[in-house]
């Protein structure tokens, strides 16, 4: 990076110098590099203090029984990992809840995002205004305030019960609670929508013109032109959403707290509960590392599968 910077910023004068001799230039480069690291040192410090060192610490903790309050802790080997899969029914439930959520909410959100993106990919008046309006939920959607609002909407005296005249405990019923969270996730379709929209704008008009001359209807155009040309965008969105889907926390933490019957006990929420409520840092760290492995494996699978369904137009050339 710093090399690129120094090249791009170098003036004609510098180029002359380079031609004259190599040695002074090398010295200069070294100096720039040094300064560069110094300038990004605030970032480096924060990275080491808040990311790198905690990551290493959690890896070590995963093999201990560290519980925050006790001054001492013990090396327990693989006990934490063994406990997860053999002696913790709640862990299995949290896996079920997370997988169910990820495999329902993510496809629904992507489908919805694509549908709205196609609606907005027209040249009607006010389309920019709609774009901003539809993107807004994603900006605020992850926030605590929206989660609190959601809880009120689905509360006993909330909007849904008032509008439909029902008296359903949406957040207390094991069959409905997770769907309120999935609905919230689908509503936050804004960022994949924007990416889809950008992708749609890349598709050349001529393809559609040619297709309609050949008599293809809208539906055929969508399946034969739009979707294949959009697969790289779908792929990107899928990977990003998959990763964030497995790390969902705020919504469940605020709206349901994992209840009822642990049907909304998402993985990250359970890690939080074990770490900061039960203070079992070792166990929670072990869970976090298993989550990393789960996400990594799923991401690799999606990447591997991409050669079968992702279509890059450049390959055709």
């Amino acid at each position, binding site marked *: 990076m710093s090399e690129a910077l120094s090249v791009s910023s170098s003036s004609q004068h510098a180029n002359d110098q380079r031609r004259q001799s190599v040695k002074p230039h090398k010295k200069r480069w*070294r100096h720039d*590099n*040094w300064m560069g*690291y*110094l300038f990004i*040192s605030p970032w*480096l*410090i924060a990275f*080491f*203090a808040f990311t790198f060192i905690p990551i290493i610490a959690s890896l070590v903790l995963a093999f201990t029984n560290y519980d*925050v*309050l*006790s*001054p001492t802790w013990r090396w327990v080997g693989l006990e934490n990992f063994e406990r997860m899969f053999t*002696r913790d*029914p*709640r862990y299995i*439930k949290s896996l079920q809840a997370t997988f169910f959520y990820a495999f329902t909410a993510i496809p629904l959100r992507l489908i919805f995002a694509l549908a709205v993106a196609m609606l907005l990919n027209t040249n009607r008046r006010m389309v920019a205004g709609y774009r901003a309006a539809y993107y807004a939920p994603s900006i605020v959607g992850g926030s605590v305030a929206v989660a609190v609002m959601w809880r009120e909407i*689905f*509360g*006993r005296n909330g909007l849904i019960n008032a509008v439909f005249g029902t008296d359903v*405990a*949406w*957040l*207390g*019923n*094991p069959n409905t609670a997770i769907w309120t969270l999935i609905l919230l996730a689908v509503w936050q379709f804004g960022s994949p929508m924007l990416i889809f929209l950008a992708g749609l704008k890349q598709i050349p008009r001529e393809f559609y013109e040619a297709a309609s001359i050949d008599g293809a209807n809208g539906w055929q155009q969508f399946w034969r032109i739009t979707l294949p040309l959009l697969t790289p965008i779908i792929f990107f969105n899928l990977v990003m959403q998959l990763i964030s889907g497995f790390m969902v926390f705020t919504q469940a933490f605020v709206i349901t707290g994992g*209840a*009822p*019957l*642990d049907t909304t006990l998402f993985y990250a929420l359970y890690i939080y*509960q*074990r770490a*900061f*409520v*039960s*203070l*079992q840092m070792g166990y929670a760290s072990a869970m976090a590392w298993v989550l990393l492995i789960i996400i990594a494996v799923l991401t690799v699978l999606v990447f591997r599968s991409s050669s079968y369904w992702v279509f890059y137009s450049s390959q055709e050339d």
Partner: protein
Amino acid sequence: MRHKFWLLLAVLTTIALVFAACAPAAPAAAPEAASQPAAGGDGKIELRIAWWGSQNRHDRTIAVIEQFEQLHPNIDIVYEFAGWGDYWTLMSTQAAGGNLADIMQQDYARLEEWVSRGLLAPLDDFVADGTLNFANVSESSLAGGRLGGKLYGVNLGTNSMTIVIDADKLAEAGLETPNPDWTFDEFERVATELHEKLGIYGFTGNLTNEQLWKNIYLSLGQWVYNEDGTGLGYEDDQPFIDYLKMVKRLQDAGVTQSREQEIAAGGSVETDLIVTGQSAMTYVWSNQIVALTSAAGEGRNFILLPMPRPAGGASANYLKPSMFFSITSQARHPKEAAMFIDFFTNNVDANKVLMAERGVPVSSEVRAALEPLLDAPQKMMFDYIASIESSVSPIPPPDAPGHADLINNVYWPLVIDPFMFGQQSAEDAVRILREEANIVLAAAAR
């Protein structure tokens, strides 16, 4: 390669400098500082206090802190407060960082865990030298703060659980006020009749709460945990099975809210349906009566009764220290901390601000001074505590170190909820409780 070495050195030096700049904030070398009035540059002592509670409590406590600062201009008090759940997360994190406040509010359920980890300091020296003056405090009020013969927490108020009955609904249904020594059978009958005659909930308030489980065994002269906190302290599961079956009957008959609705509603005194007249009875801790009645508004009449007991049992109530002030072992100014706790306990003016918000004060002098100032709900609370004082069961030992883990990871998710949602029988629920409790409690006590 040499420039890389210098680069690394520069980065490490910068990191070291930043951490060095942060270091004074982390009181790793605190112990020596305790005796010297260090801290602020102007020679002021900085005392840190932490508590949990509602906005009402925050306002009152801060006002008392200001009173204390005026009396002791050399002491500067820094305070932090939070709600119940966040408070314990905050305190645990501070404890791990060696950065605990001087005074922290403690709870009877957590006291043993914190003492067993060496995080609280014994207060007996301050009692001996008179910094903490308990001349007007009875031994029974202090007993809850003693562990292994040493005092680790000063009781800030006395509390007990109570059934709140809407007197007007009771009259409307043509029912007599039950006796204070009522049993669960009578309770079930009254709740059911209230529901059937008035068409409202007979009882709201969470009957599956672990407090009720504890009350049952307390009433039978036992305790839910064994002496060393490694397992359950009772052999006979039948009383709890009978109780769970009663709770399920009440739920299925619509006398109480379903577990579904309970979860969806969340728990807070102000949102209890008795407030809006949609329920005839509930239960609260006695200090919450003030919040409940003020939420219910003017013109309401409530009766307070002790908790119902299993047939043949003794009182299911005990006098619980509502909360404590403890001095932490990481405190920099334990002496000044003790002075503040003494002020909080004994000073009449301070207690006129606090107005028994944390429960009935332990000092008899303070109680006498507050008596004429009490409004109706506060008087109800004082009278209720006075009325049960002579008949309550003795205070049980503090909860086992594994209590919180057991409740969060076993009691609710594996025992109560599957039972209330009809996924397992009462017998299975209780069997799972016993099996898992022995594992969880033994692991925590280790």
